[in-house]
Each structure stands twice: as C-alpha cells, then as structure tokens.
C-alpha cells in the first residue's frame, strides 16, 4: 500500500517536471518571437524614413535617378522578405544603397546644410543603431532558446513537440562597441 503511494507520488513529480519543461520551451520560443517583432518595429521605422530622405535629396539632386531607383528597389525587396535569412540579406543591400545615397548627397553643399536633411540623417542613423540593438537582443534570446532545445533532456521533449533550431539574425555590424564613437555632451 505504502509503496503504491510512493510510486504514485514519484509519477506525479515526473509529470509536473515534464509540464514545467514544456512551458519553458513555449516561454523561450515566445520570447524569440517577441524579440523578432522588436526588430520589425525598427525596420519598419527605417522603411518609413527612407521615402522622406529621398524626397529631400531629390529636391537638390533630381538627376541622380540611378541611385533613387536602387534605394527604392532595395526597400521593396527588404519589405517583401519572407524569412529572417532573406531579410538579413535584403537589409544589408538596403544599408549599402543608403550609403551610396548619402555619398551622393555629399556632393551638394546646399543639401548638406538643409536642416530637414540633417534631421532625417540623424533619425536614420539612430534607427540603424536601434536595429543593431534589437538584433543583439534577438540573437541573445535565440542563443538561449537554441541551447535549451539542444541540451539533455529538453532535446527529447523539443523533438517530440517539434521545436526546431532557429537561425541568428546576421547583419553587417560595424562593431560600434569595439571602436567607441567619441561624442561629447
């Protein structure tokens, strides 16, 4: 009689432990999704800023059609990306075309002095920093999730319920931390 109770108690403990493990898996996966939506918020902000920047530049340099077209194409490409991998590639292309756009703007002293343009440039730079920040948070949640589903014994639970390994979001990072930007207040 007594041993039956002990066995039942042990089984109960094991069931509780399995429930806890499953819930941790769900929680970690949801955190990854939440972190991804943080990146999307910042990416969206960048997509919204780009047409404004282009309009301002067009006012001074309307004949640089080739650059405008490239930026517009890259933006459309990035907005239509279907997965993280595609997104990362498209964002890198977009960043590069934007660099070209600003390099072009360098040739127009009037444009460089335009307050509106400077504001937009600052906004865009800030958004790019925020994308990097959000990306690093996303990657840290991915690291957490991936190590959890790959370690024993959660890997069994993960494969039973189909929790797959997730990909890091890799953007070209210009390593702001390793080369500190000197800004005085």
């Amino acid at each position, binding site marked *: 009689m007594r041993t039956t109770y002990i066995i039942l108690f042990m089984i109960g403990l094991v069931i509780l432990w399995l429930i806890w493990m499953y819930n941790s898996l769900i929680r970690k996966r949801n955190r990854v999704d939440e*972190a991804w939506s*943080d990146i999307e918020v*910042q990416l969206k902000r960048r997509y919204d800023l780009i047409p404004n920047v282009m309009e301002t530049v067009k006012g001074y340099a309307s004949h640089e059609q080739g650059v405008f077209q490239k930026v517009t194409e890259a933006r459309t490409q990035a907005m239509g990306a279907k997965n993280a991998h595609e997104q990362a590639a498209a964002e890198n292309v977009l960043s590069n075309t934007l660099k070209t756009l600003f390099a072009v703007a360098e040739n127009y002293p009037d444009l460089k002095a335009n307050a509106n343009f400077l504001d937009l440039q600052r906004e865009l730079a800030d958004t790019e*920093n925020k994308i990097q920040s959000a990306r690093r948070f996303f990657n840290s949640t991915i690291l957490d999730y991936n190590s959890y589903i790959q370690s024993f014994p959660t890997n069994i639970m993960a494969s039973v319920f189909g929790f797959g390994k997730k990909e890091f979001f890799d953007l070209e990072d210009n390593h702001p931390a*390793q080369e500190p930007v000197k800004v005085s*207040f």
Partner: protein
Amino acid sequence: MSLFFGVVIAIGWIFSGAYGNPSILYFAVFFSILMNVVGYWFSDKIALALHHAKPVEMKSNPELYRILENLSITAGLPMPKFYLIQDPAPNAFATGRNPKNASVAVTTGLLEKLERSELEGVLAHELSHIGNRDMLVSTVAVVLVGFVSIVADMFMRSMWFGGMSNDDDRGKAGGFLVIIGILLSILAPIFASLIHLAISRRREFLADASGALLTRYPEGLASALGKIASYGRPIRTATNATAHLFFENPFGADRDGDGIPDHKQKTPWIVKIFSTHPPIEERIKILKNLKV
C-alpha cells in the same frame, strides 16, 4: 535599510526581554518588514526626491536619451524613466520595483567626466540591476532574515519554557543550548545586515558582468570605475538610506579620511563585510579579465 531593520529588531528584542512579552518583538519585526516592503514599492519616488532628480527628455537631450533607449532595446527591457541629478560627483543609480516601473538616474558630474563608451558601460550596469531584479532580491533577503530572527526567538523561548517545567533534568547540555539561543538572538540582527550587504555586493558583481555583456565592451565600464574612484568627494545628498542603490559608493573614494584614495590601499576585511559595494579595484580587475 537593513541597518534600520536590525536596530528595530534589536530594540524590540531588548524590550520584549525586559517585559517578558514576545509580542513586542513580533511587532518590531512586523513593523520593519512593513517598512521594507513600503520602501521597495516606493523606492523610486523616495530616492529620486531625496536627490532632487530632474527627468531627462528626448527633446532636451537626445544624445543621452538615445544611449539609454538603445541599451534598453539590447537588454530587452522597457525604457526606464531617466533622471539627471545636479551634482559634480560622478555616480548613477537604478531603482524601481520591476522593469515596468524602473528609473535610472545619473549625476551631471558623470556626464562631464565620462566618454560615451564609459557612460554606456555605467548605464548598462544600471539596466542590468533592473533586469536582474536586484531591488526585489534585496527586499526578499531582508524579509527572510527577519523571519529567521523570529524563529530563533521562538526557539529560545520554547527552550526556557521546557527548561523550567522540569528543572531537575536540566543538565549541562540544556544550559549550553540556552547560551547558544541567547547568542543567536543577539546576533540575528547583525547577521541580517551582514547577509544583506553580502548579497548587495554579489549583485554589484553580477550587474558589472551582465552590463559588460550588453555593451560587449567591459573596458568602458572598467575605465568609468577608475575615473569615479579617483574622484574623492561625496555626493552632496548622499545618505545611508540610498547608498546601496548607487553605481559606486556615494560617500566618495576616501572614506577613511587619510588623504589617500581607498582604491590605492588594500581594503581591510572588516570594512569589506560592512560595505554595500565591493572594493573598486576588485571590480576593475574582474572586468579587465572578462572575455565577451
């Protein structure tokens, strides 16, 4: 806070002993736990009011605001309320009962003396305190030790009671236990503060490490600590009540008043165990050895 807690319990213990009535001690413990919980709930408002903190706005100081905003995104925390304290001593603190109700404050001295990467290190350290829920940890520590002292007192009383009912059987062992019980009850409030302080120091190291992980640049935090350590004078509004909140001890680097900054000397262990923060030279050494 823990010192206050200890004193209240000690007074409660003395009175309850004098009147032979345990309810006074229980009341004292209850009162100080209540104070701690209230302090935990309103810590942000109390601390910010004590130091005359003014909010930092996106409009008035976009550079500064954005540093904290971006670090919060990296840490995956909501943007805390951001305050500035008019004080030439470089320091910072974080407070609030949970990440949603958190505040970070920096002194004007900190902004003047630090480079951007160092400031990022300090702010990442403060954000880590919020992310690690250090306010909650500290409150729980104090409340737990409070219960320990109640249990110690009950234990002692039950022994006295038992001892009196059969006086004849009371041998050497009984007397010995009574002495231990008395010692425990006296030492409980002291242990309360010591354990709280030890936890506070552990959490500082932890915040240093998680802060370094956020910026991926521990050297920034290390050199900020060096600069803060070499600044001798205390914060004008420094009080014991909020000392444990700060980035580094707000009473200044030369606490023993011998004219030599403390970080150039070896910290005696007795000073160490009664400090809210670990010795600065130890923090710098650990940060320099970090690999991220």
